[in-house]
């Protein structure tokens, strides 16, 4: 058995697919943390978006409407997180934990009510794949990057745009200031609470897209707890990526590869999947401990109370 059984085109394609929900959620988590809010609730936000996307696609027959429903669900939970943590100074971790439990409970409750099984929904039409003609002509890269779901390409655009937005626009500068030094930002005339709310909602919406990818592109149905810890892996990817869009994307690729590898190894049965599944968490701890580069959060996560 050669190494090519693990490292071949199909596993690299799977890496790109499995990195997509992580990229969305890691970018989403990054925007929240950049304005000083830890979004522990990524998992629940993703799961709820995955559910609503299937819900809307099932009853409307259109995956586009499903996509919109997933986006709206991410916005709604983001708004709750923002309202409670920014305006009412509630603890971010606790609200995030609440959102996770809510996401798990609510999606299962509705799934049982609508489809009679809390395990899985009926299948719906997924989002279309994109075939880019000129990509096929590039050797190696072409087959690797072509014919993925439209959301895969959207995730590429998202991290590139996030990078540009964060580091090359005045809004990006202001949002970084809000996280790093809210007092100074306030003194400079930036509406700190407003910025925090907007970007927590935006970040949660991005995380919601990760959920939509899972239920309308990866699988074409909703399954109980289908995020399976990806919200937490995304947090890990965000830290490993040092709270930068490009870092988030590269870390997501790495953890996406771990995910793809884990699936492959599970079918081959050569190594316990649990060992590979725990690697992203272990790497994150090593990163935080400063053993693999230093990780300094962009904010102290304290609620900003205007004096």
């Amino acid at each position: 058995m050669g190494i090519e059984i693990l490292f071949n085109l199909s596993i690299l394609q799977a890496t790109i697919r499995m990195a997509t929900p992580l990229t969305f959620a890691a970018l989403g988590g990054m925007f929240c943390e950049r304005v000083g809010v830890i979004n522990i609730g990524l998992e629940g936000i993703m799961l709820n978006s995955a559910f609503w996307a299937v819900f809307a696609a099932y009853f409307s027959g259109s995956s586009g409407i499903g996509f919109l429903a997933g986006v709206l669900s991410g916005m709604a939970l983001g708004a709750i997180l923002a309202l409670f943590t920014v305006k009412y100074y509630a603890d971010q971790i606790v609200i995030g934990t609440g959102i996770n439990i809510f996401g798990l409970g609510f999606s299962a409750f509705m799934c049982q009510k609508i489809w009679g099984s809390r395990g899985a929904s009926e299948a719906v039409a997924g989002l279309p794949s994109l075939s880019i003609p000129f990509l096929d002509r590039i050797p190696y890269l072409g087959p690797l990057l072509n014919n993925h779901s439209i959301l895969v390409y959207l995730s590429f655009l998202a991290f590139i745009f996030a990078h540009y937005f964060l580091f090359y626009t005045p809004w990006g500068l202001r949002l970084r200031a809000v996280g790093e030094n809210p007092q100074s930002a306030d003194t400079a005339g930036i509406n700190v609470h407003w910025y925090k709310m907007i970007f927590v909602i935006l970040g949660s919406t991005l995380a919601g897209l990760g959920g939509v990818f899972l239920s309308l592109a990866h699988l074409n149905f909703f399954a109980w707890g289908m995020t399976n810890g990806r919200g937490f892996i995304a947090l890990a990817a965000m830290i490993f990526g040092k709270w930068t869009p490009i870092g988030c994307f590269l870390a997501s690729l790495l953890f996406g590869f771990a995910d793809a590898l884990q699936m492959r190894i599970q079918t081959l049965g050569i190594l316990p999947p649990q060992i590979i599944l725990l690697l992203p968490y272990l790497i994150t701890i090593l990163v935080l401990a400063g053993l693999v580069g230093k990780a300094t959060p962009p904010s102290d996560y304290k609620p900003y109370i205007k004096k």
Partner: protein
Amino acid sequence: MRFSLKKSPSRFSILPEIIAILLAFFIGALILLFSGYSPLVAFSALFRGAFGSRNAWGQTLTQATPILFTALAFLLTFRAGIFNIGVEGQFLMGAMASALAGAYFSGLPAPLHITLSLLLGGAMGALWGLIPALLKVYLGAHEVITTMMMSYIASYLTSYLVNYPFKAPGWVAQTEPVAKTALLPKILPPTQLSLSFIISLFLALLVSFFLFHTYLGFQIRAVGLNPEVAENRGIAIKNRQILAFLLSGLIAGIGGGGEILGVHGRFVDGFSPGYGWDGIAVSLVGKLHPGGCVLASILFGMLRAGGMTMTRVTKVPLDLSLIIQALVIILVSAPYFIRAVILRRRDF
């Protein structure tokens, strides 16, 4: 700057908490109404299933027991200013250690076997708490992320152990059953309620005594309230934070062990529906006081135990309990929201 240790959160009014819990049930009722169920029928089944009979009480308290352990574990670190959200991991590691000690030690008299197994569980939990403690104190790694990551590692590690090296023959991923001498006595047959419940109550008393009536407990609270002042007063902050982590892991580990030796009799893969996460919520709902934790853990035990009856009788999905739990967590942790929006007070 001065300490004001007397003004602990438990002395404030509990009105916002009560309103939050009622509001959570109210929103739960709305969700039921919109999905075509009768809230009245569902909730009466839930309360009957939780408190309606001797057996119902037994089930509720059985469900409350592991949550009380994890709530106390979270509470201890929180009082030292540490946000240890890795209680689930410490709970699981303790459960695994106790399950193995219970199954593989033999020839011991029951009291000794039980004590040894529980203590090994506690030690394993403490060890699992020590890692993020050292990472925080010496390397400055934020405990919120490290403890969460440690939880997931524990979850996959125990899953690996129970699926591979310690898997009992058969298709279910579970360890060998623990010896009869390691089983905790049941105190309310035929329900699953075991001695573990009494241990958890005893620990609640002990934690309360430790935090509020010993010098070491005072120091831990001082570190949590204001580390700078505590340091100026000559308290070794790092030392006390490590201690809080160790004690937290110890309690969570014993809780995990108690669940195995008292209820399941072996480590079954995925036996914990997230007791560690419930503990965080219960600790906060209980206003970070051991007495409050006891009451709040019974509330959550009620949602779990009563929820099962509700599902059986009314076909309302069990997940309603989870939804209400989530709402309780969110609303209780936002007293300013309750004060401003519900009580119309502007002075928050």
